[in-house]
């Protein structure tokens, strides 16, 4: 039974981590036209509890993508400098969409896993019932 509850909590941690990744992707997409915005990236890391690896996963600290900001030419913009350019964001929409899709796939895999474990434990319960 501990295996089952462990598997369920691990699958839940996976779903949580993917959801937080998806949240940051949506932040990036929402701010794709914000001047000076640097896209946020999260890396996943294994959780360690009392020096022991639990096998669960967590979203790591948020880091800012350090790639260069795009220079946008718009002389009428109040932020524009002498040459008529201002700093845009470094968000690449294509990249964000791909990332979102990957997060969705992984989320589904975790959900499937959760369901499978639930079915197994309920089959065990059925055995006890009759």
């Amino acid at each position: 039974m501990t295996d089952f509850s462990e598997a369920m909590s691990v699958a839940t941690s996976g779903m949580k981590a993917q959801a937080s990744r998806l949240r940051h992707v949506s932040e990036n997409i929402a701010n794709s036209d914000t001047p000076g915005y640097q896209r946020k990236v999260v890396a996943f890391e294994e959780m360690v509890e009392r020096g022991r690896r639990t096998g669960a996963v967590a979203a790591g600290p948020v880091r800012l993508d350090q790639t260069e900001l795009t220079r946008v030419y718009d002389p009428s913009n109040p932020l524009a400098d002498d040459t008529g350019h201002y700093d845009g964001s470094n968000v690449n929409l294509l990249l964000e969409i791909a990332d979102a899709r990957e997060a969705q796939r992984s989320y589904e895999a975790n959900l499937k896993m959760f369901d499978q474990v639930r079915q197994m434990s309920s089959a065990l319960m059925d055995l006890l019932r009759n």
Partner: protein
Amino acid sequence: MHSSLDLFQTAHAMARHAGARQAVVAQNIANADTPGYQAQHIAPFKDVFRTHANAEIRATRDGHMTSTGQIAMDAVAMASKAEPSPNGNTVSLEEEMMNSIAVGREHNRALTIYRHTMTILRTSLGRN
């Protein structure tokens, strides 16, 4: 059969093995995007059971406890067949899905064996 109930113990070991394997598969899937994570796995039941049967402790009296039903189930890093992804992760989601289905079936099989053994016992007791 009725004196030792080996079938129950085998079914029990098999169900436990399936549970442990499922936990490892869940771990792999949760870490499918973790950089540097090495996929883990547990050897299939038939291999584990066979190696265990060879190293069986011999009981000198009927009342002695043997270790039947307790098999080694340690997760080991899987020898990666496929190329790891650029971030060093060796989990393949497709393979893990297949494993998960196989494990589900193994668990079902174990429970079915258990239920049928129980039915046989009930029949022999005349309480069908």
